[in-house]
């Protein structure tokens, strides 16, 4: 089982993503943007990792989304192979029309706007740990395949543009109805309070991750690859050694590939 971790100029999470892939029992390699894109077909699954591809020029993710390798990735996704976009990878999948999946750009990951008590208390870049609630059914998406409904997962975010918004009427409701909302930001007891710091970036209805209708393409702003060992979770020293919650995303991907074979 081979996973391609796709690297654009400016990507900066490819190494820890590859560690996570391997840790979940899959083979993987970093796939540089200027390799012949046909070689991409040899892989069983794909991750578009985080970073600042093309320096976030114009809009985060937009330039990478036009690379030839993305056209091939779309074809592979149409075959049903799993694709997970993390942080900047999520932004790239949205810009390429792969999420929520119409082929059009239906969403934007806009600048973070932190609101508390009706007042904007901060804007832009923010790094911190969040709790995610798994909103969907088990097996709904390639990256949440093994998660129970309502499962809570601790993961960090680190981005300036993760505020999911849309101008398309009814889209948010549709995503919820179709169980395409995979993760929401919530507090430690699992309530999605729509206020900073629980809603850490101002995202519509606290949405942190969504999938396409088929479930084989998942995008999420939080970084599961930074939460694959329990020692990575704050506060330090309170947990027994073992896997971290982020590993479930990668193990889900593995299971998704196993059952779709």
């Amino acid at each position, binding site marked *: 089982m081979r996973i391609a971790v796709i690297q654009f100029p400016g990507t900066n999470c490819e190494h820890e993503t590859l560690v996570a892939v391997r840790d979940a029992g899959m083979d993987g390699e970093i796939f540089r943007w200027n390799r012949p894109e046909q070689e991409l077909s040899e892989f069983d699954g794909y991750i578009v990792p985080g970073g600042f591809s093309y320096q976030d020029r114009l809009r985060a993710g937009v330039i990478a989304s036009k690379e030839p390798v993305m056209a091939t990735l779309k074809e592979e996704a149409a075959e049903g192979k799993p694709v997970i976009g993390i942080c900047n990878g999520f932004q790239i999948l949205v810009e390429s029309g792969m999420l929520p999946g119409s082929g059009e750009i239906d969403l934007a990951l806009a600048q973070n706007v932190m609101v508390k008590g009706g007042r904007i208390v901060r804007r832009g870049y923010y790094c911190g740990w969040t709790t995610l609630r798994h909103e969907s059914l088990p097996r709904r998406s390639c990256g949440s395949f093994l998660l129970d409904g309502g499962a809570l997962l601790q993961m960090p975010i680190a981005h300036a543009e993760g505020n999911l918004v849309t101008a398309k009427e009814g889209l948010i409701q549709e995503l919820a109805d179709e169980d395409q909302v995979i993760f929401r930001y919530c507090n430690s007891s699992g309530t999605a309070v729509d206020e900073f710091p629980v809603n850490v970036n101002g995202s519509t209805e606290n949405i942190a991750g969504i999938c396409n209708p088929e479930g084989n393409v998942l995008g999420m702003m939080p970084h599961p690859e930074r939460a694959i060992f329990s020692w990575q979770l704050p*506060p*330090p020293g309170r947990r027994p050694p073992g896997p971290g919650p982020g590993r479930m995303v990668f193990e889900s991907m593995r299971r998704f590939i196993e059952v779709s074979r």
Partner: protein
Amino acid sequence: MKIIGLADDEVDKDLRAAGIGMSVAEARSIAAVLGRDPTLPELFNYDAMWSEHCSYKSSRATLKEFLPTDGPNVVMGPVEDAGIVAIDDEWCVVISHESHNHPSQILPNEGAATGIGGIVRDVNCMGAKVVATADPLRFGDPYGPSANKVRWVAEGVVDGIWQYGDALGVPIMAGDIVFDESFDNNCLVNVVAIGVVKKDEIIRSRAPLGAGEGGYDVILVGKPTDSSGLGGVVFASEALREEEEATNRGAVQIPDPFLKNILFKANEDLFRLVREEGVEIGFKDLGGGGFTCASSEMGAAGGFGMELDLDLMHTAGEFPPEVLCIAETQERFLIISPPEHRERILEIYNKDWDLPGAAGAKASVVGKICTHDRYIVRDKGEKVIDVPIQHLTGGIRYERESKPRKIDLFEPDLVMPEDMNAVMLKLLSSPNIASREHVYRYYDTEVQGNARIRPGEADAGLIVPVRGKGFGIALAVDSNPFYGRISPYWAGATAVAEAMRNVACIGATPSTLTDCLNFGNPEKPEAFWEFREATRGLADSAKRLWLKGYPGQPVPIVSGNVSFYNEAPEGSIDPSPVVACVGIISDAEKAVTMELKEAKDRIYLIGRRYDELGGSEYYREIFNETGANVPQVRFEEERAMIHATIDAIDRGLAVSAHDISNGGLAISTSEMAIAQEVRLGLDLEIDGCGDASLSSDRLLFSESSGILLEVPANRAKELEELIRGFNLEPFDLGSVTDEAKLVIKRRGAPLIDLDLAEARDAWTSGLEEAIE
């Protein structure tokens, strides 16, 4: 340029007209060595290489006189761009520490960003993976007469740091911020970077053995050379004058973290090639002094000469030879390598990583190493520079005059305020004590996935950078300008002691130190005295606090930087010897934070309270006084304190630890309760931890060195024994409670009875108010 035969005033006029900063005597000495009038490009090259920034002409003798740079764990001392110490038999830490003060005052965003850009290159070029940075920052008074400018600088600097560091993908794990009116016109932006490398994979910044005989290539990699950062080192070697601000802007470099991100990955492939082929290369970043500095230093360090051709250099346009030589265009490296690997190396950068297509950059062969001893540069077929390479890089030395500054400070006569709760709230929200969260949320601490202890959780940051290895690397920085104002010597000594305490308070053993010495104009005897005193102080601490496990051996100082001329016509900065300390903990699982852990645990203090409130937050914030009794380092006691803390954490006796610094015992204990969401409180009795004659406010707010340890009640006796075993006195202050209140009593009478939720609100809002 004509020098020989002209009168001094004529030479001076010509030098200034050409924009050259050197003295007439320096120009004459160059002409004498060359035996002719130097060319304009030659003068510019000497001017850069002999600048204070490149040559350490004022400071070198003092650094050599005082600083201990060797030790049993030192792999490489301060000879190249970064120092290296061993972690274990296989792995090493690489560390470098620089300042980017002048550029950041002029263009805060670009100045701070290129500060990170430069320091990470210094570490990377040793063959290392850069795993963390730290940023010690000093800004003016955010509520003073220059408030608008100060806030503009502070905001720009923070933006520059996160925009560069986050995009590059290197976590920012430590740092500190101090506001002090002496920085109104001269901010300090220091930056530290650390990397990891295997001992047998270190790459040196010099032409390797046989490079001259083999006619090795000189390959310039990175951004096309332009005129940005022109004269940066000369500008950094002068005091800032407002009327020259427009000109100085051109001396600030332009950051490009995007290109750096790609370059670092291509460099990894270069390092792999070097390993697999077993070939030795020279590799160095281009920083201050640009192309000339990097190339000539590498050639001279290998004992060779070199011939370079500017027509082969990739440039951003037409520029005169002196510009191409000394401009400080960012994101460039220089490789010296055998010609048989030329094709492969160029392929790595130009094809595999497509520098031209992805980022408009390139790798070009620009010359070769020779067995002669000249530094020769050609431009458009003409020889424009031909000088003895060792003379160019050797620099010059100055014996600067040193004269003690008359410091007219005294202890104020004060009346203790009635309402200590109000004092506590005022101190907790003061810009220098308030939580740094507002700033560190901009910093990506999680990239690379190595963070174990993050900013705000403890006195030092901790990363676990090598998978499969249990060791952690701790990083902390320190320096208190208010102490420097009273005594530069004790500012130096306490900076080292506190940085070491910080690292010890998470359980790591201090392994190495770096220093960035920020002062005023060294041509003024009082400023030079401050520099010497601070250096002597920090050296004394490094020597007398010992590398743990090696009695009598200093904690080595393996990297550093001197930044002079931090002054404006309005005055000089407070003496600021900024120190970074790296600690190693062999089992990172054992590291502890400062946050209180469990109700009923006991709180112990080690370190007696003395009448040492000079420069304290209490004096300044509450009474607007400086005072004179600056905290001193009692070397024997301090060493015991640091070593006892490391052992107590290693044995699992201390479950939390926090050192006493700004705001003294009262602030430090409250920080343990409010560092995270408030869950627990404290009930403490402080009588006896200082002389009975000491007033209660002095006990509470003295900034004498000390460490607070939390221990489970059933192991308190064990901890006491351990502390006594170090000839220290354990003070049992009281216990952790499950009520969110800080109660501090003396002889049973409450001094402080503070609601901790209110305390946390005050503490978390102070910084944002000061810089937004």
